[in-house]
């Protein structure tokens, strides 16, 4: 990762609810990167994101977005942030055009031309009432609203939940373009790991209120592999270090998180055909982290 300036930093952030604790979250995001926040339902992804937006007050720790504390400077931060929640709420009896005008009045950098062209690209009728928009249309409309004030950071909380694959892909492509072409930073939270796989540069796993792993996605996928092996092909040290171990008719398998370190030790087995390496996806890694051995 280049030494780019962090636009977002969380240090030991805590939030306590009845039956749930966000337990000392620490994270940072350099400018121009896409961070995927992965975790099962109820892991604390939405709480973390809402703390960034000052929609939830933290109980402890430090948060800086563009060098500002959301609890003290929420208005300034929100002026530079586009937020898209899982559910889109608007004044249902108002039209798309009215809502655009209403939202515009809150931002310093609103660009009406961008808004109009996004509405056209997304095929959203300006005269339609927002309650008449489908779920997919609402997400597109939210994106149009979110992108029209030229935000430096996009925060998306489960944005593709409930969307059909075409719109999902479209949304993810747009995020990718914003990051690569315009240097915008993005945080996207999802339990659909495929979305993160397609878009993210960095991945953070949040499980039961704790960040258990943060890594660059490519490095993560290079290190995490499933190893299939015949009995006796691996040393007991290696076997014991594997998670999600399974025995089956053709041998055994397990997942390692330090493949690059073990690579040389596995070469002989691979050559002899008693060891095979399989790529894993983020789902496999999440399950390994949740369930362990």
């Amino acid at each position, binding site marked *: 990762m280049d030494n780019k300036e962090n636009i977002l930093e969380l240090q030991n952030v805590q939030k306590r609810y009845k039956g749930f604790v966000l337990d000392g979250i620490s994270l940072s995001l350099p400018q121009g990167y896409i961070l995927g926040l992965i975790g099962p339902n109820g892991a604390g992804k939405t709480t973390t994101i809402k703390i960034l937006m000052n929609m939830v007050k933290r109980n402890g720790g430090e948060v800086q977005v563009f060098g500002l504390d959301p609890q003290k400077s929420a208005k300034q931060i929100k002026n530079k942030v586009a937020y898209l*929640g899982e559910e889109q709420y608007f*004044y249902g009896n108002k039209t798309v055009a009215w809502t655009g005008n209403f939202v515009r009045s809150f931002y310093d950098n609103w660009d009406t031309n961008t808004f109009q062209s996004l509405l056209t690209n997304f095929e959203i009728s300006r005269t339609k009432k927002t309650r008449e928009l489908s779920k997919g249309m609402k997400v597109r409309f939210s994106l149009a609203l979110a992108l029209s004030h030229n935000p430096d950071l996009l925060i998306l909380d489960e944005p593709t939940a409930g969307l059909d694959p075409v719109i999902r892909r479209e949304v993810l492509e747009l995020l990718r373009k914003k990051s690569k072409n315009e240097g915008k930073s993005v945080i996207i939270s999802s339990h659909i790991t495929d979305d993160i796989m397609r878009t993210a540069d960095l991945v953070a796993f949040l499980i039961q209120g704790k960040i258990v792993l943060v890594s660059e996605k490519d490095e993560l996928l290079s290190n995490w592999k499933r190893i299939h092996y015949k009995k006796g092909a691996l040393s007991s040290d290696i076997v014991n270090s594997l998670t999600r171990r399974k025995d089956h008719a053709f041998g055994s398998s397990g997942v390692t998180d330090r493949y690059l370190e073990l690579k040389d030790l596995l070469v002989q087995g691979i050559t002899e055909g008693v060891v095979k390496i399989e790529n894993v996806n983020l789902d496999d890694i999440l399950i390994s982290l949740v369930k362990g051995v």
Partner: protein
Amino acid sequence: MLSIVKKNMSYFIGYCGVIFTLTAILTLILGNENAVPLVMISGVLLFMLVFGPVFFNEQYEEKHKAYYFLDTLPVKASEIVLAKFGLVLVTVVATAGYLLLLFSVFKIAPDDWALIRSYILMSGVVSLFFAALSYIGIFSLGYTKFAIIVMSFFVLLGFVPIFIMKFYRDNLDVLIENILTFLRNVNWLAAIPLVLIGYFSLMFIAIKIKE
């Protein structure tokens, strides 16, 4: 903040239009001899002018999860609260002013005029504090819970006449005279600043709750 005022204003303008027209027509039709009931009704209408828009607007905000929507925008909680309190204050001042202007056409004794003025201003004060407490209640408990409490309060208020008839039956005239004397003797020059201080203190509490 202005766009929030503008959005909420539609409720108040609609009610204002109806009540301003209604009171003007009633004043023309009923005339001088019915001044007392007309003034009494106007005080209640002034209260309704605040009660209706405040509650309908908040119901609308809840239905559309508007506070969640606003929370995602660069607007401070204090601006949202200020917009709401400001609008109520302007509405009450404008309506009380309009009613006093309207009733100035009546040919009545100065003492009675002081009573009318005091009654209208008192209705305005009650409306202001009712709105302020309603916003505090809604921000603390949510619209649905607070609406149930307010409805229960109005049902209990229905028992007040029964209570008065039971305990003040023989002294009803005295009770009414005491109320009228109180209204005649209110020093509004001193009371209005106190009312405003109280109202803005409640606004400050509402901002703290909303934050």
